[in-house]
């Protein structure tokens, strides 16, 4: 029983000392925007690129005088690639830091875990990376997505299928919401366009040896391999594919494959591969807003960030830009007003035009923007625009 009393003393000490510090003394001056990203754990690289992008947007906006005459301040939280942590981070941002809007939370499971919190407190979130279709179908009116769900990406690729010459495709994807979703979406499109689907293989997020899957795919006799995973695993698959003389046309999906890194790390193994991207940092002028894209690439390089991170980093920029635009439109930094204003924003991000259309059950729709989608090819150790893209 002595234990109980000690527990009591400790508990109260912690609760009184640790939790009950006055919450209201934070400065009111800057407009706070919450950011939730995976900054540690297995996908830390991507999360950190997005964070770098948000910081560029913040500095640019503040240099131009901020919004509503106030500077903006980012409150960045790590979700450790864990949905529980993502929900805790959202709770902390909304309640403790009183942010009127959030950008996050990279992976779909993290975003899905945050969504009930948005509804609970009535705070809008701009989703910058997550691709699961269900995010905008749940009837959560606080969610506004600027990244394409896999279905939209697949549809976007659909028009190039003929140019790519896909007759019989195999899939190799990371065994997560994203990989599973991409396989389903691209599989659908392929079947609709009369192409065959052969092997569908998965790999764990942390797996490093994919030779078994490759050996299996090598046996199907297809012509194209659709690859959906992080750039690290793409590198490994390309290298190991070369080791086993896989000899396939490879198309990576998801937009975060940073071909530069592939050229550097996979070398000749990356030759000839196609990549679906949402940003072309090699040809910023080919982007819908060439000037903005160029400036972003320059700033990124100036800051010494790895070039390979640009294809992720731009999302951070566009997400923050969207929120700030909504604050400007709303005329005040309040959650409800920002939510309403998000429906009205129409702006040009690094990716292209951002404008939300309604998605999900009527009456409580989520917002979904339609991002621009591009395809590049690695040729001669360089990233090139394939002929069919250039002619568009």
């Amino acid at each position, binding site marked *: *029983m*002595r*234990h*109980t*009393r*000690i*527990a*009591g*003393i*400790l*508990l*109260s000490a*912690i*609760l009184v000392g*640790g*939790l*009950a510090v006055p*919450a209201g003394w934070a400065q009111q001056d800057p407009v706070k925007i919450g950011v939730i990203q995976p*900054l*540690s754990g297995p996908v830390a690289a991507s999360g950190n690129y997005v964070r770098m992008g948000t910081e560029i947007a913040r500095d640019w906006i503040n240099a131009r005088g901020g919004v509503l005459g106030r500077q903006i301040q980012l409150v*960045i*939280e*790590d979700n*450790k690639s*864990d*949905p*529980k942590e993502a*929900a*805790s*981070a959202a*709770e*902390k941002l*909304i*309640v*403790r830091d009183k942010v009127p809007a959030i950008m996050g939370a990279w992976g*779909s*499971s993290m975003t*899905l*875990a945050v*969504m*009930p919190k948005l509804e609970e*407190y009535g705070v809008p979130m701009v989703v910058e990376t997550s691709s*699961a279709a*269900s995010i905008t179908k*749940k009837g959560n009116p606080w969610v506004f997505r600027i990244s394409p769900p896999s279905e939209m990406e697949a549809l976007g690729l659909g028009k190039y299928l003929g140019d790519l010459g896909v007759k019989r495709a195999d899939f190799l994807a990371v*065994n*997560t*919401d994203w*990989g*599973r*979703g991409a396989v389903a979406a691209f599989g659908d499109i392929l079947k609709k366009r009369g192409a065959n689907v052969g092997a569908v293989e*998965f790999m764990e997020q942390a797996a490093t040896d994919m030779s078994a899957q490759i050996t299996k795919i090598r046996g199907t006799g297809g012509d194209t391999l659709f690859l959906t995973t992080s750039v690290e695993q793409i590198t490994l698959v390309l290298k190991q594919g070369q080791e086993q003389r896989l000899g396939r046309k490879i198309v990576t999906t998801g937009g975060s494959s940073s071909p530069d890194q592939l050229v550097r790390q996979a070398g000749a193994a990356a030759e000839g591969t196609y990549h679906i991207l949402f940003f072309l940092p090699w040809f910023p002028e080919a982007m819908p807003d060439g000037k903005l894209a160029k400036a972003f690439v320059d700033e990124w390089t100036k800051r010494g960030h790895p070039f390979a991170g640009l294809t992720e980093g731009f999302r951070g920029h566009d997400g923050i830009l969207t929120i700030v635009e909504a604050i400007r439109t709303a005329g005040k930094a309040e959650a409800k007003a920002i939510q309403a204003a998000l429906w009205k924003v129409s702006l040009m991000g690094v990716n292209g035009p951002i404008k939300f259309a309604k998605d999900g059950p009527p009456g409580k729709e989520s917002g979904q923007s339609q991002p621009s989608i591009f395809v590049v090819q690695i040729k001669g150790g360089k990233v090139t625009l394939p002929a069919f893209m250039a002619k568009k």
Partner: protein
Amino acid sequence: MRRVGLGVLGALLLAAPFWVWNPYYVHILIMAGIFTILALSLNLLLGYTGQLSLGHAAFFGIGAYTSALLALRLDWPAWAGFVAAVLVAGLAGYGVGKVSLKLRGAYFVLVTISFAGVIYLVSVNWMELTNGPLGLPGVPPFEVAVAGLFELSFRSKPAFYYLVLGVAALAYLVCRRLVSSRIGRAFIALRENEALAESVGIDGTRYLVLAAVVSAAMAGAAGSLYAHYTRFVSPEVFLFTYTVTMVIMVVAGGKGTLAGPVVGAVLFTVLPEALREVTSWQWQMLLYGVLLILTVFFLPKGVVPALETWLRERRAIRP
């Protein structure tokens, strides 16, 4: 004196939503409560029977998935899902215990790790049942309703806090009663000297399996609460990090004591959040690791036993 202490603690906890005005802190209290249940459950095995189970997240996850699936697929009310989660997790505990408790020490540890690993992979790959890595969003909030009679909703945070507090108190009570009974004495006997325990008629396997079942059922209860609180369940609930967190709480708090896991759970739920406050994200996990090393290094038996020793020595000095 003892009763006064308990009373004050109880009153403080009951009144928490009134003096902890910030919902973020209520959220932390709820998470601490859920982890208290988990730590108490693991402590039964690790602290009292001495069997280190490193697959405990599996039972937590089984509870969470049972609740979520019953609510989403079969429209079961949350309370029924909760009961089912406890039963299913307990049943899983029985199966695992029956099979793995033939083994001891390091081998038992590794079987439990493997079990959790397999369950995780099933949750990721059995798309039809679990929706795979996409997880199960939209788990309904915890509500108890009898048509026309009454309705009790735990949708709000303070209400859910009371629910968690109630379940945690119940878990604590179960542990306390077990531990101070012949069953608890059998657990301790098996931990301290299995041969001697058997020689006075204690059926080792039976009691270890019993500990595994009760422990798993409690973890399942925590899983169910978690599912209805976060309203989203994904395979991450099975991850090793959850088990590691529970082990940290039990061992750093003081295994084999009743208060240890409670103190550990509160401490190590608050710590990461406190680190969020005082440092930026780069340093949080690094500091967490270092603090953990220091805790173990200076209090190898855990916080509660160390405090007890300290109190006893102080009392010995004073007349």
